[in-house]
């Protein structure tokens, strides 16, 4: 009976609080696979390491169930010794997701991209996506995606190449050393070459959050309905859904649609141009 169950296991290791949420009966298997995964990659500080070990991925959010904590205590000790033995860096968050089997767990949203390979690493970070994009991405329809990609491109700022920022910062710190003598001490420490990935991570962390991120964080839906907010101020969809279509090649009124990507064109000549140049350009 026990052998047929493979439990959902979410192991969150946060020194010194070790919380294991489900009783682990098949600890040896876990031990093996976790050890294998851990040795494959270096774990840096505060890096979230997610591994999925069987077919489907579990959901991304951690949850607690106090009822199970009692049984978990005994497992705590085992996991602790196992992980200590691997000499991992301190204070890292470590999430292991094994396959969810129990059908009662409706809370898990399994992702469709399967990891049939047990060592395939997938990020479980909740990605907040605008509702329109969710609908479009879920539809897996090339046309909807292409249209949305085009609209997003219209809001583009054309900031140019961003890699200049890091170089500029280095130059700036070298220049003004009047009152910031401690910067001089920083220079010898950063002689180690940063990998491109580390640079990109640092860049992403330094960059200011976009407005859409701030909007999501502000969580405006939770306010009562009589309070006017940014979201309620948006004028809604148009009253009539009839719209004119313009040819994307020449700009005049278009009556025909491209079968592959769904954009409009007005004549055969425009269709040829479209097929040669940018059919499906926005969709990889």
């Amino acid at each position, binding site marked *: 009976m026990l052998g047929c169950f493979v439990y959902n296991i979410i192991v969150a290791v946060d020194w010194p609080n070790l919380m294991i949420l489900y009783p682990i009966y098949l600890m040896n298997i876990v031990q093996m696979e976790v050890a294998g995964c851990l040795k494959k990659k270096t774990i840096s500080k505060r890096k979230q390491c997610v591994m999925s070990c069987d077919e489907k991925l579990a959901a991304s959010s951690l949850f607690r169930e106090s009822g199970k904590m009692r049984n978990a205590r005994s497992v705590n000790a085992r996991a602790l010794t196992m992980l200590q033995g691997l000499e991992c860096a301190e204070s890292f968050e470590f999430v292991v997701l094994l396959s969810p089997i129990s059908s009662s767990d409706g809370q898990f949203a399994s992702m469709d991209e399967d990891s049939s390979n047990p060592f395939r690493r997938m990020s479980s970070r909740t990605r907040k996506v605008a509702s*329109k994009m969710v609908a479009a991405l879920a539809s897996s329809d090339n046309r909807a995606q292409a*249209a949305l990609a*085009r*609209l997003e*491109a*219209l*809001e*583009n*700022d*054309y*900031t*140019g*190449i961003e890699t*200049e920022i890091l*170089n*500029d910062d280095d130059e700036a710190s070298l220049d003004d050393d009047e009152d910031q003598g401690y910067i001089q001490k920083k220079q010898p420490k950063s002689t180690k070459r940063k990998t491109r990935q580390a640079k990109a991570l640092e860049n992403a962390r330094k960059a*200011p*959050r*976009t*407005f*859409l991120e*701030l*909007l999501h*964080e*502000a969580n*405006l839906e939770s306010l009562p309905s*009589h309070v*006017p*907010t*940014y979201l309620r*101020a*948006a*004028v*809604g*969809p*148009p*009253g009539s*859904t009839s*719209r*004119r*279509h*313009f040819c*994307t*090649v*020449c*700009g*005049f*009124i278009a009556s025909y649609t491209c079968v592959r990507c769904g954009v409009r064109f007005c004549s055969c000549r425009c269709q040829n141009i479209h097929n040669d*140049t*940018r059919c499906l350009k926005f969709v990889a």
Partner: protein
Amino acid sequence: MPSGTVVVLDNGGGLIKAGVAGDLDPAVVIPNCLVRPVSSKKYIPSDPLPSSKTSAVAASSTDLTSAAVRRPIDRGHLINADLQREIWSHIFSTHLHNVSPASSSLLLTLPLLTLPSIKRDTLSLVFEDFNFRSLCITDSPSLVHLYEASVRPSGLASKTQCSLVVDCGFSFTHVAPVFQNFTLNYGVKRIDLGGKVLTNYLKEMVSYRSINLMDESFIMDDVKENLCFVSLDVERDLQLAKKPGKDNPFRCTYVLPDGVTHVKGFVKDPEEAKRFTTLLNGSDSSPPGVQNHDRPQAAEKLEGRKRTDPTKNEFDLTNERFIVPEMIFRPGDLGMNQAGLAECIVRSVNSCHPLLHPVLYESIILSGGSTLFPRFAERLEKELRPLVPDCYQVKIVTQEDPILGVWRGGSLLASSPDYELMCVTKAEYEELGSARCCKRFFC
């Protein structure tokens, strides 16, 4: 209480208008971005727009072709306080050098319905980085209303203290009812279309059809401002735009800068650009007889100039000239699931008290840079009239200077005697914290 200098700063997504209260015009109108020209590696603040006050010659301006741009304002709201601080300190040190922030008060405009975190950032920017003595935050529609009411004291807007302000700016378009100098924020409706999206749309079309200009934001802004207009009948104009040669009243050429002979682009033939104005509204497309007579003689002279030379840096525009501003009236044509400007106005008015409806329809004020397209007001009235009940009158008024209108309203407000009561002083900010101070300002 002796009032020190008040700095009025209209912090827009595209342009910052800054000056001292009491003046008619702002001291400087400068793009709100940092640019990096191709010749240098650092980001520098951009040059101010030439105005009647500045005596600096345009020849000293930096070359803005293919300049990368970084903006502190994303979708209309301030997200990058560091960039904004740099731009403001540049303004205060270069253009407003006789003003010291520590002894002055600041009147700042923020867009409607900002997020609390953004307001907090702005407050900390003002008080902690610049050390202003006091601050008052307002929103644009109430300033526009104030200015218009004072300019036209006998008009309906000032008698009823109520108007509907349509602000088509750089980042978005707001329709806001104002009642007794106070914006009714439950009635505010927003379309996410502004000058930036229009410029990008124009860039996309021109880059596909003629020359790749995707990096040239400033040049395309110039093209848009000089050549685009709003058409009153799109189907008819599209038919006309298909005709070749002289029969086509819309075809126009723009010359790109080549860095040697001219640094800025220009319209090749300004006369040609104005030909569309001979088209009468809804009537036959052939121009009046007098024009026809002049046309053949003038045509030979201009024939050599009119032909576009593909080897030179020129490109043609025909239907893009009126398709681009058409987006504000019908965003659905582009695929955006948002209503157009006329419907936005109707929805905004409908969310107010029924007794206000006739007054609001009769005093519509257009403001913001994107309303400067020729024939904008006519087209809006033509679209709005069928949507409004018969018994109400529709009257649309354009400000005499839509870009500076908000600043002038701010200048008026700051010179009024009650200004001191509306401010939050630095001492209050330090004592109460930013959350309490945000509550003082209703926007």
